[in-house]
């Protein structure tokens, strides 16, 4: 089965609303990264977060490793947040396995 499952597959918000993106993984992760990708753009690392909670600006990532899940919370969304968000894990193999992403659209 798929090692990394992200939900929802897509999400449409009005500007100012909050978003909650989920990532569930099937193996014990030694490393987890959240990435943002603008259409046609490079992958930008948002969080490198093996466990616990991290904040940067309007973004919060929470990873509960023993429950094999992570979430990305975006508060007060803006149109510039639109794009695809990826979760990726490493199970101590040295390589990342990505989910299929959540496509976020924020409307003005």
């Amino acid at each position, binding site marked *: 089965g798929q090692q*990394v499952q992200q939900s929802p597959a897509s999400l449409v918000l009005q500007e100012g609303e909050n978003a909650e993106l989920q990532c569930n993984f099937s193996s014990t992760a*030694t490393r987890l990264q959240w990435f943002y990708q603008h259409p046609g753009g490079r*992958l930008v690392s948002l969080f490198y977060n093996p466990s616990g909670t991290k904040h940067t600006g309007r973004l919060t990532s929470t990873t509960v490793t023993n429950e094999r899940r992570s979430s990305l919370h975006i508060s007060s969304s803006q149109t510039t947040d639109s794009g695809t968000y*990826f979760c*990726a894990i490493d199970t101590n193999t040295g390589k990342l396995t990505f989910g299929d992403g959540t496509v976020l659209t924020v409307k003005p």
Partner: protein
Amino acid sequence: EAGVTQSPRYAVLQEGQAVSFWCDPISGHDTLYWYQQPRDQGPQLLVYFRDEAVIDNSQLPSDRFSAVRPKGTNSTLKIQSAKQGDTATYLCASSFYSGGGAEQFFGPGTRLTVL
């Protein structure tokens, strides 16, 4: 500090043609990765190096794809005889290995279209 750089940014080929992609990792990063990202999917690892050594190339289609990193710095990924199914974005990433894993940083990618 410069990020990961890649060239070319775009390539359009006919089936059967060859193409090479070039990657310059972040200075000091010993680990370099090549990923393939089909449209509307997440990236999938093709091969990765630590210094000049191949660590894992199990997902690299060896009959047509090859990758080298001869001096442990820059790397080249080559497709010998491209197929339409190779249409994707090819991403390079680098990291500094610290035992338990390390944050990866990605380049802008090369978008390949095979007609």
